[in-house]
């Protein structure tokens, strides 16, 4: 039995197979609409995350399966003090596969060690969010034709944004990747990403403060939200929040085939006027999130 804790759990070849399956689902949804009949997905969300939870539920429903679960710790036995280990043992009796989000880092790993069913990490604190990374990779591969030989700009909160860290980790395994890291100095990538990942793998990268300076060289622009909950000081948050706003003027500086990605939800970092630009790929990205989760469920349930 296999679980998914980190995007690095899959080799590049396994990721290719998974993304091939996701693309086949995209093209032939009817072929997959009943493959999970009689199977149940449990969504155990100890903290609210409507988007990820609904994406998992949509994925299972599209496969003909059923879903059950809880959407916050308050509505689970955790409120009564039940451990993650006990909860997953019980959930193993009710469902065939489990997607778990937990504010504590490593909670899905603890669950996977006691579970009788595959466990998918649906986000654990500031640690990992592997299905977001798989979504990002599928979006890039599907819309760009390949992953590799490209310059990727990561913009915004590069310090606390776990999606950015996971994506960098996953992308350094591909050929010809260059990064442009665009952030205010307060929100630059942590040292361990710069030293242990980028420099260790001899990955070319630049760190810039101005988005305008980066735009002309980028094949992909990955925008992120500045998360209010990471700041102790409201004033500091408001200053950082307004630091980058992608608008039509900045899009004019970009290549005609550059893709704009964003894990969503956005606040103000991408103006709504950019939504109609054919290079804006963030809503398609949400759709790819469902396809990759469908492929993942099928793979972990060994139905392919």
């Amino acid at each position, binding site marked *: 039995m296999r679980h998914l804790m980190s995007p690095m759990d899959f080799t590049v070849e396994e990721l290719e197979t998974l993304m091939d399956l996701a693309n086949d689902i995209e093209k032939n949804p009817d072929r997959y609409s009943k493959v999970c009949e009689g199977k149940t997905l449990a969504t155990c969300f100890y903290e609210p995350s409507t988007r990820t939870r609904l994406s998992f539920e949509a994925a299972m429903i599209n496969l003909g399966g059923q879903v059950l679960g809880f959407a916050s710790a308050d509505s689970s036995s955790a409120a009564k003090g039940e*451990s*993650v*280990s006990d909860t997953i043992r019980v959930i193993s009796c009710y469902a065939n596969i489990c997607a778990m989000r*937990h*504010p*504590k*880092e*490593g*909670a899905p*790993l*603890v669950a996977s060690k006691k579970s009788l069913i595959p466990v998918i990490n649906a986000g*654990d*604190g*500031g*640690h990992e969010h592997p299905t977001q990374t798989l979504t990002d990779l599928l979006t890039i591969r599907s819309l760009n034709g390949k992953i590799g030989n490209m310059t990727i700009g990561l913009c915004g909160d590069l310090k606390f944004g776990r999606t950015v860290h996971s994506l960098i980790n996953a992308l350094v395994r591909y050929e010809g990747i260059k990064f442009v890291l665009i952030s205010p100095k307060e929100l630059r990538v942590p040292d*361990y990403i710069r030293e242990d990942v980028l420099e260790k793998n001899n990955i070319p990268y630049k760190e810039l403060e101005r988005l305008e300076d980066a735009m002309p060289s980028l094949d992909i622009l990955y925008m992120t939200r500045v998360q209010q909950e990471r700041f102790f000081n409201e004033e500091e948050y408001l200053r950082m929040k307004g630091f980058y706003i992608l608008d039509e003027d900045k899009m004019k500086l970009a290549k005609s085939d550059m893709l704009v990605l964003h894990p969503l939800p956005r606040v103000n970092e991408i103006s709504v006027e950019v939504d109609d630009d054919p290079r804006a790929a963030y809503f398609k990205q949400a759709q790819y999130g469902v396809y990759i989760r469908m492929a993942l469920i099928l793979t972990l349930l060994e139905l392919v």
Partner: protein
Amino acid sequence: MLNISGIHEGYVLDHIKAGQSMEIYHHLHLEDFSGTVAMIMNVESSKMGRKDIIKLECDLDAIDLDILGYIDHSITVNVIHKDKIVDKKILKLPKKIKNVIKCRNPRCITSIEQGLDQVFVLCDEDLKLYRCQYCEEKYSPKGK
């Protein structure tokens, strides 16, 4: 002068920093050990000034000493067979450490989950870097 007799079969852990032998006693789980244990503390040492020594009378496969590599790799481990030192074990950093150090990340699941082992995995041998198995936070000894 206090004399402790030699052992026939087992290990002599020498050059332990004075006062550290109790810590090693716990990490090696010697409270559950079936063989004879002699702890000699605060012994004069020409090299260290003062040192501790632990003698373990046991079969050579009766105890896992890997954790000593993490605690202090300068400890000398003499292997005793038929009353003689037959080898000096070279201490390596263990790949995994269980219930020796604690994760200090307040966001780690180990901070709330009952009965969960504290497990650290060796990530970089040169830097002696361990990370928590659950949250992957680096372990830094106190004060560093």
